[in-house]
């Protein structure tokens, strides 16, 4: 597993993440992210989607440290952290987002592990992963949130023991696990108004050193929490012509938290509707029909509103779509509903790396 690519660690086989240790950082790998999304309901009945993401990017291979001047400045670090936060106001169809960027030094940003608690933070944004709950905090001039997330199911390791193939060769892969059902309570501040909310969140944590294969232009990622207490994750790696590469796959989590790997052959997905961003000019799919053949799941997925585009010029420089979606359909004969989040990358420009 600890094989070198350009001096970085490579993911080549099962990761067998253990917790709480693997909630923490994995320096040596080029990129790593902690991804929280969720759909929330206020007492008033207003609905909100939220996103909070922390990226870690290692700028140079670990052995580059040997060439550092001695003594080294406290500012000297290999790690840069980026953060994206967003709130989708589903009533007003208004999407707000903000970003952060900082080097991992002098307590300005970092990933700290103390006993069983892991904290990922940039300035005053943070995600604290404790034994029984996660706490998310983000604050911007426009909005803020302070949420408490309690896992209803244990972490799910995707692929083979957390080893998630993202390409044709073994090292085109990441270590990837999710917490698919996090019961969420807390407050949002939006337009200067503080509202209490509750709902469901999803957490992804993934790390890798590999960049995407040259012919992959981007990916579509789906996370859905179904009303029958199951969850579905799907990632589609797209080629230029829109074709999906064979490594595209997914995971189904049943009521008991047991996961089932879904391969390319297990699902059919068709985009039904597209939307052109007035900001970037990118054209995104915003409604889909999804069929999971082995599980007899039929879903019609639709973006809760179209303009949930993230433009992150000041941190990662990437333009992508990350938005709250709803779905209706059936599992076998039973009707089912779902809430979730979809991430669409590579529509504005080729998506190569977060930085």
């Amino acid at each position, binding site marked *: 597993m600890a094989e070198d690519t350009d001096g970085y660690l490579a993911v080549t086989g099962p990761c067998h993440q253990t917790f709480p240790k693997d909630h923490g950082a994995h320096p040596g790998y080029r990129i790593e992210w902690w991804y929280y999304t969720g759909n929330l309901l206020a007492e008033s009945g207003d609905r909100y989607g939220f996103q909070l993401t922390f990226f870690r990017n290692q700028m140079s291979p670990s052995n580059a440290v040997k060439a550092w*001047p001695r003594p080294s400045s*406290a500012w000297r670090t290999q790690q840069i952290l980026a953060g994206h936060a967003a709130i989708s106001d589903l009533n007003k169809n208004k999407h707000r987002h903000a970003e952060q960027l900082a080097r991992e030094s002098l307590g300005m940003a970092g990933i700290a592990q103390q006993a069983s608690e892991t904290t990922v933070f940039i300035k005053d944004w943070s995600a604290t992963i404790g034994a029984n709950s996660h706490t998310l905090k983000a604050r911007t001039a426009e909005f803020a949130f302070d949420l408490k997330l309690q896992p209803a199911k244990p972490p799910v390791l995707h692929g083979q023991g957390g080893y998630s193939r993202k390409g044709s060769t073994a090292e085109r892969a990441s270590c990837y696990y999710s917490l698919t059902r996090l019961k969420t309570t807390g407050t949002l501040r939006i337009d200067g108004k503080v509202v209490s909310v509750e709902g469901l969140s999803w957490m992804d944590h993934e790390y890798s050193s590999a960049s995407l294969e040259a012919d992959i232009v981007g990916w579509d990622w789906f996370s859905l929490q179904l009303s029958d207490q199951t969850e579905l994750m799907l990632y589609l790696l797209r080629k230029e012509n829109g074709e999906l590469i064979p490594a595209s796959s997914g995971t189904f989590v049943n009521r008991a938290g047991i996961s089932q790997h879904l391969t390319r052959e297990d699902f059919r997905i068709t985009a039904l509707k597209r939307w052109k961003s007035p900001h970037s000019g990118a054209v995104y799919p915003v409604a889909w029909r999804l069929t999971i053949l082995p599980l007899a799941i039929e879903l019609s997925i639709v973006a809760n509103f179209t303009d949930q585009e993230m433009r992150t010029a000041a941190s990662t420089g990437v333009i992508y779509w990350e938005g709250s979606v709803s779905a209706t359909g059936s599992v076998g004969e039973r009707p089912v509903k779902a809430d979730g989040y979809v991430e669409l990358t590579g529509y504005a420009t080729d998506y190569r790396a977060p930085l």
Partner: protein
Amino acid sequence: MKMLLFFLRLFIWFSLRNMRRHMGRAATVLFGIALGAAVFTSVRLSVNASLDSFSKSMDLIAGQADHVLTRPGGYVPENLMATLLNQEIMQSASPVMSTYTRVSQADAEPFLLIGFDPILDRPMRQWRVDDQSGQQGAAWLDLLKEPYTLILGKPLAHQLKLAPGDSLILEHARQKVRFKISGMLEPNGLALAESGRIAITDIATFQEFTGLFGKVDRIDLKLVSSATSKDLAAVEQLLPEGIQLNPPTATRESGQMMIRAYQLNLSILSFASLFVGMFLVYSLVALNAASRRHELAVLRATGASAYHIFFIFLAEGAFLGIVGWLVAIPLGHILIKYLLHGVSQTISTLFVRVQVDALSLSVYEIVFSFFVTVGISVLAAYQPAREAMQVPPKEALEISQLGMQARISPRQLAFGGLGCILLVVPLSKLPAILGMPLPGYLAIFLLFVGFALLAPWALVKISHILSSILLKRFGIPAYLAGRYVRDSGTRTAVSVGALITAVALFTALVIMIFSFRQTVAYWTYETIKGDLFLTSKMGQINRFRYPVPQPVIDHLQNYRSQVDLLPNRQFFLTYDKFPYVFELMDMQGYMQYASFFWLKGDPDKIRPMLKGGEGVVVSEVFSNRTGLSVGDFFEAQIEESYVKLQILGIVRDYRTQGGAVFYSLPHFNKRYHPVYWGGLRFFFKDRSQDLDAAVARLRTDIIDRLGDRVDMYSGKGLRGAVLRIFDETFAVTTVLLLIALLIAGLGIATTLSVLVLQRSRQLNTLFALGASFRQIRSMIFWEAAFLVVIGELAGVICGFILSYLLIYVVNRQSFGWTFIYAVDWDALLLSIPLIIITALAAALPAVKMVFRRPPATLLRER
């Protein structure tokens, strides 16, 4: 509109055509006023260019910051960053460090290296990497990723003939390091600071290069717009002792203040040229009004109102002003080439470092110079215009031309003049207004006016006294000349006034510069003592913010047997925006070899107290600017200590970047906190040996043992450099002075020519009475001699008074210092006869002009 058109036509018919008929006179006056305007404008533009460049650099470097954290004389701990960034009111915070460094090669010019976190800095300052590939991120990411990489300003890269990918070796106090160039800055925003002679690097690299770990020069803050003063106070609560939260403008303002004071001084000096030009305008307009008196009467008789006449003459003044200003443009263009460099050089050596590469044409300055030039020209025309409008129309009937009768007698004028001069005394005692010696300048103006008003009376009196002597000793021409000057009234007085002004300026500046130089020389030799001075590499330009490296200090102990080592440390601080240096030194050692230049306080009493660390001595400038004097307490935050010490005495000090406060280094270490050595000086114990050779030996030995790690100056070289800088500074002044004299010469030439032309009838009568050409020419020459000598005499007297004003009022108020009054008799005794000869030479065209036209034609004309 019709009115204006008519007036314009009348002006062309009546005035312009007349000027064309007397082209020579008008051209001379125009040239004079143009020269004055050119000097005035180009001086102001030159200083403005420096001021602009300085302010722009400061603004670009300060960026969007609305507050800045500093520790006076010290550094801000970097671990404040996380706390600051977590404040809700903090929109962004960026630590900044900067230093002058240079490429390690002979004669390399220092440039500014700025270190910051490229990520934190992005909201603060505008800078972009010039990158054709569009990979904007790559170059600045390299700064973070790779140690010892930097991005160069384009002009700097071009000067060094380097491109991205190349490397260069930079040297600094601590070490020499090879840097890799990862990019160039697009020429906008920050990249324009210091005229592009800058480089940016990551703050980590900066600290590793300079050895300043754990601290930064300052932290720039940008608060959210909703932040209140209460929020700000809450942030201040978080700061450790001695860290100050200020608007970013403080350093800029103190720099601007110094440049502005200098600008005002140069403006006034250059205004003198314009002032002398004003005399020229006056003399021409007055001449026109007088010699065309009959025409004026006819104009009035044919229906012109008195105001028509008045405005025609005002318009003559305005016309001379406007055309003069236009002619000044090409003249100024030439002048400015010289001045731009000279002025920015002076400002850099005297006040703050400025890099001027281009003239910034400020619309304000152009408009200002236009209105000043036209304004003084109109002002100069006012009096003649008033006189002209009094011409009664009935004179049209009279054939005889009486000429203008002075309505005010010389005696009355003299009283007015005396009044002006007397006003000088109280004015010179008034304090400066807004830090500018405005009452002093007014006093100077009144002094000039006063002497100009005294001139007619003096001419009458002196020629009266002299005429009999002249008759006896020099014959009838001299006698007639004396009588003529006596009776010529105010007209000749005007050009004498111009000469007085120029000569007075000359005399006063010769005295002031000499006093200044003598005093500075004495100060230099008495106080800048030491056989060899040593600082960290580039210590001087970086204001000793980097310690002399410890291994160097350790090694220097080996020389203890032959030399005394006197360490010192300077802190550059401000006292209510007024910049000063707080200098810690080994008082015991210092006073053994050198001494202060005492101004106030009893040296014998103060010396032991100073050695015992009981208080400080402050410079005259510091005392004048802060109002603190002997017995008061000097208080300041210096690094982490709050210092409060009694002022024991005041000493003269001529460092140009503000004031100075001196205290004992060992006592500071004991009482407050230990400080590093910023530099030190060596004194050889054996004073009988060949000191130059000993210094050279010591220097070579230090370089052999330590390598090129420190900067060293021999005391002799340093003292020479101080005086050289002084002389360079006054080069600009000297040029301005010479131009004022030149304009005064023009004045003499015009006046005399006009006097000759006006009196052709009288001269012809003399000729008819049997005077020879020779006698008549000799008479004209005597008249010239009269005017010149009297002008010079009065000018010298006025100059002596003026020199007092300059030294004890203007210098004290604008720079805070005074000098020991000393007169450069040699220079004056040599130059004043020279000026007389030059002025007499200016009279030659007039003498030649007599009888250029045959006397018969003159008789026919009326």
